[in-house]
C-alpha cells in the first residue's frame, strides 16, 4: 500500500503546498538494510555523572564504530549534525538533577539529523535506591514522550530504563534503538533487567536458533519470518491450510519448515511441539502473530465473531505457550513474543472483541514474565499501531488517512518495523528484556 500523500509531499508542488499551508510533512523513514552500520552519523553522548550504565553506553558506541563526542551541556553548533543524542540519566539522584535534561538537549535538538535518534537511559523507577531517585527517574518518561512529539523529520525519542546491575544487558537494546530498525518505535519505554550475559554475532544474532511464527503466510507474519531468518534463525512457519500456497512461497524463500494448522485446534500446541522436536530438536523463539478481526459494535456483536477473535488472538497463544513451556519443547533461555495492538491499549470503536483479546496478550506477558524467568525464558509483546498491510488497505479512505497521520511520525509503519522489534526481543543478547510491551506505532495519539 503506497502512501500517496507522502509521495505527493516529495514533489516540488507538494513541497510548496506543505510548507505554505503547514500540512503534515512525513519524511520517508529509512529502514535498515543488511550489512549497514548500526548508525551512519556522529553521536553526542551526555550524562549526569559517571555511572556504570554510562560506561556501558560508551563502550557500545565504540564497539559499533560510531563517531561520538561527550558533553554534559549541549553546545549549539552548525557544524555537527548528530545522528543520535544519547543521554545517561541513571545518575539523576533527585529532581535537582533534572535540570541537566534541559541543559543538554535544548541546544542540540535543533541539530539532530533527519531520522535522528534520541535515547535517554534511566534507572527503573521501582528499583531506585531512594524515593528522591524514584521521582526523578519517573519524571524522565514525561520528558521523552514530549520530546518525541517535538522532534521532526522522522526522528524518534525513546527511554530505556535499566535495573541496577543490568547495565551489561544494554547492548542489544541500544543497538535496536540507535539503528533504523526502530524507525517506527517512538516515545516508548523499554525496561531492562538482569540476566545472563550472552555474547553473539550481532550480524546474525539468531544463528542456531529455531523460531516459530504463527500466521506466517502473509503481511506482518511473512515479514517477521523473513526478518528472523535474516538474523540467522531457522523458521517454522505456521498458517491455516487455506494459506498453504503463500506460506510455501515464504518458506521456500527463507528456508525452514512449514506447518499447516489452525492455532485454535485442540491439538495445535501438541502438533507444534511435535513438529519442532521432530524436525528441529526443539524451539527457542515463539512469535504468536496469527490474528483476526471481526469488527462490530458490541450491540451487534455475534457470538461467533466474539469467540473467533478471542480464540485465535488470545486463547490460542495462551494454550500454545503453556504447552510449549510445560512440555519443554521451548528450551530454557527461549523468547516468547506476543502481538498485542494499539486497540488493546487505547480501545477502539467496533473492536470490543479484538481489544479484549489484545489487552489479554498484555496480561499474558505480565503474568508469565516473572514465572518464566526461572527458566530464563523471556516474554514480551509488540503493540503495532497503523501498519500498512493488506488489512489496513481495506480501511475506508478517510479513516485510513486519519489513522496514518495521527502519530508523531505522521505516517503508517511497515510490517518490517514490527518484525525488527520482534527480532530485538528474540535476540538472546536481550536476556534482560522481559515483561515489556513496546508499541510500534510512531507514537500514535491513541492510548498514548
Amino acid at each position, binding site marked *: 500500500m503506497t502512501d500517496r500523500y507522502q509521495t505527493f509531499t516529495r514533489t516540488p508542488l507538494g513541497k510548496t503546498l506543505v510548507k505554505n499551508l503547514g500540512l503534515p510533512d512525513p519524511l520517508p523513514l529509512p529502514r535498515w538494510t543488511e550489512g549497514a552500520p548500526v548508525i551512519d552519523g556522529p553521536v553526542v553522548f551526555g550524562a549526569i555523572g559517571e555511572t556504570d550504565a554510562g560506561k556501558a553506553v560508551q563502550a557500545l558506541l565504540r564497539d559499533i564504530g560510531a563517531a561520538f563526542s561527550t558533553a554534559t551541556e549541549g553546545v549549539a553548533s552548525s557544524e555537527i549534525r548528530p545522528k543520535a543524542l544519547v543521554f545517561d540519566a541513571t545518575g539523576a539522584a533527585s529532581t535537582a538533577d533534572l535540570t541537566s535534561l534541559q541543559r543538554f538537549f535544548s541546544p542540540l535538538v535543533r541539530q539532530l539529523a533527519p531520522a535522528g535518534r534520541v535515547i535517554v537511559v534511566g534507572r527503573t523507577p521501582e528499583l531506585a535506591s531512594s524515593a528522591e531517585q524514584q521521582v526523578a527517574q519517573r519524571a524522565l518518561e514525561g520528558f521523552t514522550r514530549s520530546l518525541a512529539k517535538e522532534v521532526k523529520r522522522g526522528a524518534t525519542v525513546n527511554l530505556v530504563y535499566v535495573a541496577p546491575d543490568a547495565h551489561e544487558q544494554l547492548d542489544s537494546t541500544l543497538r535496536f534503538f540507535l539503528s533504523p530498525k526502530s524507525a517506527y518505535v517512538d516515545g516508548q519505554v523499554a525496561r531492562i533487567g538482569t540476566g545472563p550475559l550472552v555474547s553473539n554475532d550481532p550480524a546474525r544474532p539468531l544463528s542456531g536458533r529455531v523460531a516459530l511464527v504463527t500466521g506466517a503466510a502473509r503481511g506482518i507474519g511473512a515479514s517477521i519470518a523473513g526478518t528472523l531468518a535474516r538474523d540467522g534463525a531457522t523458521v517454522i512457519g505456521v498458517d*491455516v*491450510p*487455506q494459506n*498453504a*500456497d503463500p506460506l*510455501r512461497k515464504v518458506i521456500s524463500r527463507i528456508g525452514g519448515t512449514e506447518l*499447516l*494448522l*489452525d492455532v*485454535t*485446534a*485442540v*491439538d495445535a500446541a*501438541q*502438533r507444534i511441539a*511435535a513438529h519442532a522436536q521432530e524436525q528441529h530438536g526443539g524451539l527457542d523463539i515463539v512469535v504468536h502473530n496469527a490474528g483476526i478481526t471481526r469488527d462490530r459494535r458490541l450491540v451487534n456483536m455475534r457470538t*461467533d465473531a466474539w469467540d*473467533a477473535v478471542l480464540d485465535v488472538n488470545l486463547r490460542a497463544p495462551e494454550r500454545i505457550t503453556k504447552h510449549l513451556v510445560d512440555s519443554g519443547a521451548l528450551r530454557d533461555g527461549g523468547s516468547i513474543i506476543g502481538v498485542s495492538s494499539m486497540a488493546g491499549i487505547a480501545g477502539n470503536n467496533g473492536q470490543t472483541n479484538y481489544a479484549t483479546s489484545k489487552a489479554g496478550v498484555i496480561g499474558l506477558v505480565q503474568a508469565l514474565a516473572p514465572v518464566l524467568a526461572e527458566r530464563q525464558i523471556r516474554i514480551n509483546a509488540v503493540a503495532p499501531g497503523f501498519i500498512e498491510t493488506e488489512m489496513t488497505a481495506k480501511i475506508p479512505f478517510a479513516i485510513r488517512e486519519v489513522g496514518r497521520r495521527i502519530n508523531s511520525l505522521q505516517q503508517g509503519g511497515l510490517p518490517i518495523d514490527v518484525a525488527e522489534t520482534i527480532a530485538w526481543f528474540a535476540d538472546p543478547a536481550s536476556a534482560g528484556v522481559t515483561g515489556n510491551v513496546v508499541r510500534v506505532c510512531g507514537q500514535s495519539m491513541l492510548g498514548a
Partner: protein
Amino acid sequence: MTETRKVAVVAGNRIPFARQDKTYRHASNSDMLTAALNGLVDRAGLGGQEVGEVVAGAVLKHARDWNMVREVVLGSKLAPTTPAYDIQQACGTGLEAAILVGNKIALGQIDAGIAGGVDTASDAPVAVNDRLRNILLDLNRAKTYPDRLKVLARVRPKDVVPEIPRNAEPRTRKSMGEHAALTALEWGIGREAQDELAYRSHVNLAKSYDRGFQDDLITPYLGLEKDQNLRPDTTLEKLAKLKPVFGKGETATMTAGNSTPLTDGASTVLLSTDEWAEQHGLRPLAYLTHSQTAAVDYVKGAEGLLMAPAYAVPRMLQRAGLTLQDFDYYEIHEAFASQVLSTLKAWEDPIFCKERLGLDAPLGEIDRDKLNVNGSSLAAGHPFAATGGRIVAALAKQLDENGGGRGLISICAAGGQGVVAILEK
C-alpha cells in the same frame, strides 16, 4: 429387553454407475432405483412378494419425489403391500438405510427388508429462486385479476435465473473438494500417494469385473454393463499428468483422477434373519454386527469436513471390543483419495488419537492390501446415496467368498458426518 436377532446380508444388486450427463442423463432417480430394485427382486426370487420394509433415499431429490421410495415400490415387482420410506443422510444414506433395516430386523419388528439409495447428478432438480417462488406463491393466493396482475408485475428479469444445486456446504460455501483439499494440506497428503490410491482403485475394480465378482451384484441398465468411470488401462503416469482442480498453486494436489466424479446410479441390499433367508432359499453372505455415526464441527475449521469417520470408527471399535487391525477387509469410501489417506494417517497419529479421540495409543496402521480390494468410489464413481449399498453388498460377498472374516465399512458424508459399520461372517 429381548435378545436381538442376527442381521444377515443375503443379496445385493445395483445398476452400473454412469458419469454425469452420459448414459443415464434422462433417467430419473425413480427409474434407476426401480431398475436396481427389480434386479434384486429377480435375483432373490421375490417377485410379487412382500418384504418387511424398503428404506432408501436420494441426496439430490426433486420436490415431487417426496414419497419416492414408496412410489418406486409401487412401480416395482414387489408386492404393492410392501411399506417403504425415504431417508437422507448425504453420502451416508445408503449405509444408514441398511442400518435402519438391520435394526428393525434385530428387534424383531420385521424379518426382512431392503435398503437402497440412488442419486442423479444429471437429472438434478432445478428450482426457481426464492424471490420468484414467493411471487408465484403470492400469485396463487391472490383472488382477483387485478391482484394477480399486481403480483405478476413484481417479476424481474433476474427472477428467471434458476437455482441449481451445488455440491457445496451451505455454511462454508466451499465445495466438498475444497474442504478435502484443506484437510489434505493439514495432513500433508502428497499428490503421488493420492494418485497411487486412485490407480489401485481402478486396478482392483477392473480385476473384480475380470474374475466375474460383479456378475451377481450388477444388473445392466440402459445398455451400460460396467461402471462408466472405470479406466482399466489407466496408469500412474496418466494420473500424474492431470492438473489439480481443488486448491491453488503449487500446494494443490487434488485432480479429477484422484477425486470422485459426479455420477448417476442406484443400489439395493436385501437383509433378513437367518430363518427368513432359509425359507426363501437364500443364505447369509455376512452379518451386519455393529454400526456407528459421528459428526464433526467443520464450520469453524476445528476439524475437516470429511473426517467424521475417523471419530466414528474408534467409538464403534470400543463397543465391539476390537482393534483396527482385527479386520480382513477395509471398505473406506473414496470420496477423494486424500480423504482416505487423511483418515488413515489420523489413525496412525498419536497426537490426533490422544488429543482428538481421547485414546492412550494410536489406532495404528492397516494392511493396505486389505483396503478396497474390489475397488471403490474413485473407480466406480459415487452416486451419493447409492454408495452405501454398493459397499455393503460387495463386502458381504467378499466375506462369503473368503469363507468368513470381518470387514469394516467407513463412509464420510456432507455436513461433517460419518457412518461406519462392521460386517462379519
